[in-house]
């Protein structure tokens, strides 16, 4: 017979021990060799032999055999307690291995918000693949509200969300800021200078995403406009880059959007002093930052800074809570 590797000997020994412990536990629970043998679907003499072998191996008597059944000895009670721990650990091990085989482990389910830009999405996929060749990244485009619902439901492992984002049950990576600028018709007088003050948009028709899509972000954006002296005449809702561009090209309207390549009669101009930003971060269910999730968040952070014009917080904003805010800062 060929010599077995030491690892194989060890594993056979361990398997055997676990098996014998399962037999022992069944007898202890049933307090009867006959009933235990029936449960285990084996012959009673065979079960008795195996328990005796376990007792020999351990060097203690585990069970007292009487006419009415089998009862635990004091040593048997101690061994039973340890047996429960060992078998529970073995079950966990088996379950983990099963998950790896089923593919549940090794696939990361991730999402990005709409409008992140083709370059950023491509860079994210490429960079993740480069850093983790073994894992599969299942990437979808989902609005922030849908992402938080799926993260909570457990159908999504990690996402890139826009803030404000509801927080219960989630943990967030560092916040990145994406500056908003003005998308103007090429012939617009404001398109001349390389940048313009937010206040210059006062009285114009402003194009923004539909409020129902993210009411908190919509309000936050218009409040920031007001804070920087920009009071639009009206606010128009546009879903997607094509309709936005159409409204701008039709004359008069100005869209507030992140950096957009100049094309087909429109130009994008930054706002002076970066008064308006959209905040973005990675998000995952609290306490579930697996190595794959951490790899995704680190990769996303680098990619967003390089390819989506995002930056770390310019400087800490002043916050003056009013007395009715009730809590001090």
């Amino acid at each position, binding site marked *: 017979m060929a010599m077995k590797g030491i690892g194989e000997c060890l594993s056979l020994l361990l398997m055997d021990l676990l098996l014998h412990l399962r037999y022992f536990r069944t007898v202890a629970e049933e307090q009867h060799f006959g009933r235990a043998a029936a449960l285990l679907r084996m012959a009673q003499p065979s079960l008795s032999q195996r328990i005796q072998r376990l007792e020999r191996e351990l060097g203690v008597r585990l069970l007292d055999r009487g006419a009415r059944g089998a009862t635990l000895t004091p040593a048997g009670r101690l061994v039973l307690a340890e047996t429960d721990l060992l078998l529970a650990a073995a079950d966990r091990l088996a379950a983990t291995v099963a998950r790896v085989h089923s593919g549940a482990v090794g696939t990361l389910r991730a999402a990005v918000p709409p409008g992140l830009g083709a370059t950023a999405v491509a860079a994210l996929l490429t960079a993740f693949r480069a850093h983790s060749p073994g894992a599969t990244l299942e990437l979808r485009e989902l609005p922030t509200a849908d992402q938080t619902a799926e993260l909570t439901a457990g159908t999504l492992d990690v996402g890139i969300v826009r803030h*404000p984002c509801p927080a219960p049950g989630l*943990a*967030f990576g560092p916040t990145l800021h994406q500056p908003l600028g003005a998308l103007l018709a090429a012939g617009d007088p404001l398109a001349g200078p390389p940048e313009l003050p937010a206040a210059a948009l006062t009285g114009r028709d402003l194009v923004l995403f539909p409020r129902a899509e993210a009411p908190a972000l919509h309000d936050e954006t218009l409040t920031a406009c007001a804070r920087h002296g920009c009071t639009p005449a009206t606010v128009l809702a546009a879903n997607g880059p094509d309709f936005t561009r159409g409204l701008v090209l039709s004359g008069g309207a100005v869209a507030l959007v992140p950096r957009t390549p100049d094309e087909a009669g429109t130009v994008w101009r930054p706002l002076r002093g970066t008064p308006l930003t959209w905040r973005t971060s990675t998000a995952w269910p609290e306490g579930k930052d697996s190595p794959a999730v951490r790899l995704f968040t680190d990769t996303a952070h680098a990619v967003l800074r390089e390819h989506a014009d995002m930056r770390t917080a310019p400087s800490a904003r002043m*916050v003056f809570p009013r*007395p009715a*805010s009730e*809590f001090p800062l």
Partner: protein
Amino acid sequence: MTAHAAARRRITAAFADAGVTGLLHAVDIDTGTALGIGSDTLVPTASVHKLCLVATLYRQSSLGLIDPTRPVEIPAIPAEDRAPGATGLSVMRDAARLSLRDLASLAVAVSDNTAADLLWDALGLDTVNATMTGLGLTRTHAVQTMRELFATVREDAAGEPAALTDPAVVARLRALDPTRTNRSTPREITALLAAVWRDEVCAGEYGEELRALLGLQAWSHRLAAGFPFDDVRVSGKTGSLPTLRHEAGVVEYPDGGRYAVAVFTRAASTDVTLPAADAVIGGAARIAVDALRA
């Protein structure tokens, strides 16, 4: 009941429109008819728990267990650290002496955290909790005073005040976790208010004084904002923490209709100043009260 379902849908839509998620329970104090959204969900109560505190003071007083006129010495700062806060004794500097019931007035009128903590010290967390249990409110439980609550906030924000507008920091505040801070449910808070208005917490002059005290709140940007009617009386107590805006109170109409309402919200935005999120508390309460009155 379909009218109530329609009201619930409108309330949920109003919460979403204001950028918050919200829970609500409204009950007709005299008929017991109720309308709710997440009525039995455990919530961090923040300053709404001051309702339990002052109700306990008046119940103990009516039973002769404590004298509400008992004076409390308040040393000048920094003789003793006062609880953090933007109002009342928390911002005052010199020594003072106030009775327990006047501390209760401050705790309700301007959500004075120092006044509340002096009451917590005088009554004890256990007494307040036992009083709530005695009223059948088994899920209403206080585990900390205001200064202890804010100590966890400071710790979790690593002493960096601006961090309290950072979503990553706010997400991990223990003060927002109902299992680790003072807590209740929308249904139990309205049950407490209904009991106060039905003289079940304390009767006679104690009941009248307690109800008058609960009508002292200085701000009207939340619950009262939903009832801008001169002939409608709104009593209430707000509660706030980063992203949390609550108010629970009683709305009384001249025709005798009286309704206990509790609204608990959590905003997506971490901004401290969010008028729409404050106002939707009143808006949602009015939809609920109108449905109960229909």
